[in-house]
């Protein structure tokens, strides 16, 4: 048994304004995705606006405390404690704004018809505090751990290359960036204008956009 109160979960403030409170990662859950979210202040984003087109997850949101205004493909729903939103169609854009201080939303997700696989974005989110504090070795370690399960995930490889370039590991950064571009060509264009790669951009092996 593992136990925690939502107020004891880690608080990882994301650049988009919402606060990620990791649940699956804390407990080591492997059968479904589950996380909590809070907001920096009333009126702030609490559920990132996005679709689930890439992962094809269906998602169930529960307002655990406070109030939130959900917007699902343009339709607004104001929810209080104990109220749920189920978004079956992964294509639908969804997001939520906190209306009360201390609002907490729980999100549960998975892809129907397939065993659950840990999403790569979790490692990228988990590395945010280390990146913010320029603890590059820690950020690199978090990405490397995620790559054990997803060795050919282009976004993870690209992010790892960013951390390595920032952390003075130019050779590793070039290798991982080139692998990311090999797997998914769009990353070359991202890299061309990404400040993370300033230290290695002049290397002749840097991928051309």
């Amino acid at each position, binding site marked *: *048994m*593992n*136990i*925690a*109160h*939502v*107020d004891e*979960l880690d608080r990882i403030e994301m650049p988009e304004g919402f606060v990620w409170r990791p*649940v699956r990662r804390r*407990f*080591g*859950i*492997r*059968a*479904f995705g*589950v996380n909590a979210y809070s907001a920096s202040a009333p009126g702030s984003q609490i559920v990132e606006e996005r679709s689930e087109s890439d992962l094809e*997850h*269906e998602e*169930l949101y*529960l307002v*655990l*405390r406070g109030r939130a205004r959900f917007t699902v493909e343009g339709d607004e729903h104001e929810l209080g*404690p*104990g109220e*749920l939103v*189920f978004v*079956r169609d992964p294509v639908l854009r969804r997001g939520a704004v906190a209306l009360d201080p201390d609002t*907490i939303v*729980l999100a*549960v*997700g*998975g*892809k*129907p*018809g*397939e*065993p*659950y696989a840990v999403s790569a974005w979790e490692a990228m989110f988990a590395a945010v505090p280390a990146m913010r504090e320029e603890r590059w070795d820690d950020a690199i370690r978090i990405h490397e751990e995620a790559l054990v399960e997803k060795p050919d995930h282009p976004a993870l490889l690209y992010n790892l290359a960013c951390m390595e370039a920032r952390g003075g590991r130019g050779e590793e950064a070039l290798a991982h960036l080139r692998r990311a571009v090999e797997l998914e060509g769009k990353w070359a264009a991202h890299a061309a204008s990404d400040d993370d790669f300033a230290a290695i951009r002049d290397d002749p092996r840097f991928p051309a956009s």
Partner: protein
Amino acid sequence: MPLRQELGLRAFGANCWTGEPGRHVVPQHSETSGDEELYVVVRGRARFTVDGQDVDAPAGTLIHVPAGETREAIAEEPGTIVLAVGATPGESFAARGWDEVVVAFAKARAGDVAGGRAVLAALLAREPESWEGDYNLACFAARYGERDEAFAALGRALAGGPADVADLARGDDDLAALHADPRWAELVG
């Protein structure tokens, strides 16, 4: 509150349990199916016991229980609500139908026997090879006065299920209405 069934969840199981002080909000069980479960105290307060360890769980508490650990929870405040989410690691989620059986019996107890029968019929149509489906249909039919149907379903459950289905049947109060019928001894012994 059968969330999976009501909402049509397909990637994981989810249900809410409500209870007044002293009543179960999570019945005592272990997940022999391999499911891991996350319980979330949405409102009120509950006392969880997992493999003999007691935990006080006010609203906002999250409790993760791996498969195999025996768990139960009792409400300690009025209107306590616990959300339970579960699935098996490494497997595609498939509804096992126990929640539909609970709904079917609840409908019948509330006077909607036809509604309960329809829920069970849908379950059996989805899982025609399931001995559990036939067994539950036998219980339902026995409870609600359809002896012929009950014996037919029980016969299929005994034929298709494991060897201990007969033991299960002998100790099941739902089937008590069948005991006096000569077909009971023939089937169950």
